[in-house]
């Protein structure tokens, strides 16, 4: 198959895609790097020359930097924990033969197709509004004071909204993984005297470990950059300013492109650290 000739032909045919992808990624990356070393204030004088690592130092020493790292970690970690745990349980549930299975599966997957902006607005206004939200009614029904979700429990609210969006993805991947489990293995463990809980811990969960790592890897990469959910709910207030939201504020609200770009470079480094870390876990998992 892989003769010299077929390999060079393959390279030729892949070239346009590779060039396009490289351009797509390299141009913005280079521009971000370029601006991060400049003092660039579009509405206040424009390009004010090179400043070395000034922007990098200022971004980290700003009082909002560490809180934003904290918010990012809480949101990513919280959503991962919720989607993986509930995803495993839902996948097991959906794997059981039941009436109307096709429709139920469709419904479970549906949230994934709702745009983040829309779903956040729906959650914010229809569920979490302290006056006329559904949750407020529920609280009042039990005689409790409605929670001011967006201000009193801002981080948990966002974690909840984002989890709702990503749960279908986790469920879908885990469901396909469960379906690939050899039924004879479960029967063998049943013969071996393993009760339901042990079968879950010793057979199903190890079988799912690879799918779980894939879910964590992919979700982390996407969750690090969530934006719309914060923009339309709290607008970054009440301690929900993540790293990407902070960058957005620096560039667009403060009109400081240089500072924002420096933040962007930090975000790239952070994402790569996470990616390398997770790749190694997945790699180890894929080895056997």
């Amino acid at each position: 198959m892989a003769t010299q000739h077929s390999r060079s032909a393959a390279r030729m045919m892949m070239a346009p895609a590779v060039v396009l992808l490289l351009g797509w990624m390299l141009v913005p990356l280079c521009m971000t790097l370029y601006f991060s070393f400049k003092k660039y204030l579009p509405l206040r004088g424009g390009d004010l020359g090179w400043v070395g690592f000034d922007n990098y130092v200022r971004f980290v020493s700003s009082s909002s930097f560490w809180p934003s790292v904290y918010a990012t970690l809480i949101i990513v970690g919280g959503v991962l924990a919720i989607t993986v745990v509930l995803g495993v349980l839902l996948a097991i549930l959906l794997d059981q033969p039941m009436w109307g299975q096709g429709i139920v599966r469709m419904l479970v997957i549906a949230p994934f197709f709702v745009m983040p902006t829309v779903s956040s607005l729906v959650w914010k206004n229809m569920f979490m509004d302290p006056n006329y939200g559904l949750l407020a009614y529920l609280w009042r029904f039990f005689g409790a004071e409605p929670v001011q979700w967006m201000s009193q429990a801002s981080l948990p609210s966002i974690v909840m909204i984002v989890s709702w969006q990503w749960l279908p993805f986790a469920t879908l991947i885990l469901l396909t993984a469960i379906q690939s489990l050899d039924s004879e293995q479960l029967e063998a463990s049943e013969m071996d005297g393993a009760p339901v809980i042990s079968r879950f811990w010793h057979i199903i969960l190890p079988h799912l470990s690879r799918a779980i790592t894939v879910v964590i890897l992919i979700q982390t990469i996407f969750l690090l950059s969530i934006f719309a959910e914060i923009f339309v709910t709290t607008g970054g207030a009440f301690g929900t300013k993540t790293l990407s939201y902070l960058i957005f504020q620096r560039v667009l609200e403060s009109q400081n492109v240089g500072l924002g770009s420096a933040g962007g470079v930090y975000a790239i480094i952070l994402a790569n650290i996470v990616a390398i870390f997770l790749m190694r876990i997945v790699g180890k998992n894929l080895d056997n």
Partner: protein
Amino acid sequence: MGRIVLDNVTKSFGNAQVIPPLQLTIEDGEFAVFVGPSGCGKSTLLRLIAGLEDVTSGKIEIDGKDVSGLAPAKRGLAMVFQSYALYPHMTVRKNIAFPLKMAGLARAEIKKRVDNAAAVLNLTDYLDRRPGQLSGGQRQRVAIGRAIVREPAAFLFDEPLSNLDAALRVGMRLEISELHERLKSTMIYVTHDQVEAMTMADKIVVLQAGVIEQVGSPLELYRAPRNTFVAGFIGSPKMNLIDGPEATKRDAHTIGIRPEHIAVSSDSGSWKGKVNVSEHLGSDTFFHVQGTGLADSLTVRADGEVSFRHGDDIYLTPREEHIHRFDAKGLRIA
């Protein structure tokens, strides 16, 4: 201990009755083999005994105790699956120890039993490997190891050797027979391999469409098949079944004669035909003979040195005392 009695057991999947009422007793310490064509319900029957399927009606007794409603683990049986069903993420040691761990045995006792089983099955060097790093035969032995540590009342095997190559199959066949000699526990073994059935069994159960056609020792089935189905199923190559005048002459609707009970000659004999295909196995030669006017093709066995070519005339003489006679319903005439 492991005397297994199936009393009027039936099994239906939806409307399809796979096992009609069935009566079977397997004595303690017996090696019983279920054979039959594909889809006849061998696996289903085994799974009913194991408890992996519920009986639709009837009851299953193990050592006189009704176990029809019991969970698989409570029946005290161990099963070896066709795919081995080893736990891929556990080492061989953990695989074998799993049923003991589930039974809540002390760690020292588990170690002792696992080491014992590993020694018996020549697995000592592989205890720290994972199933993915073992050959087919070794995986098979791990599956057996996982079964024997529990010291079950009976072993159930569902075509355990069908994934192995021919040479390994012969080896494992002997090992399982030896294991049976040593443990003396009841074993039920499903196969559609003739040779496995004949060589290993104390008792063969021939099934067709969920119905037991005959139960008996291998030689009983070979010498006195109860009907034409068993006659055609047991023995390799298959028995020749002949209808028509040759059968009527012997007061039967159908007669059967095994390939090994026909003498061949190049100049004289009762039946004359032409050699079509000859299969030389070295020790034996099988000739497929056509144009006898008795059946489409007759198979005969001859010594390895006998040589006929394609198209040669061949004369066949059946040994009268080995002719089986069957009536119009296919039942044996004594």
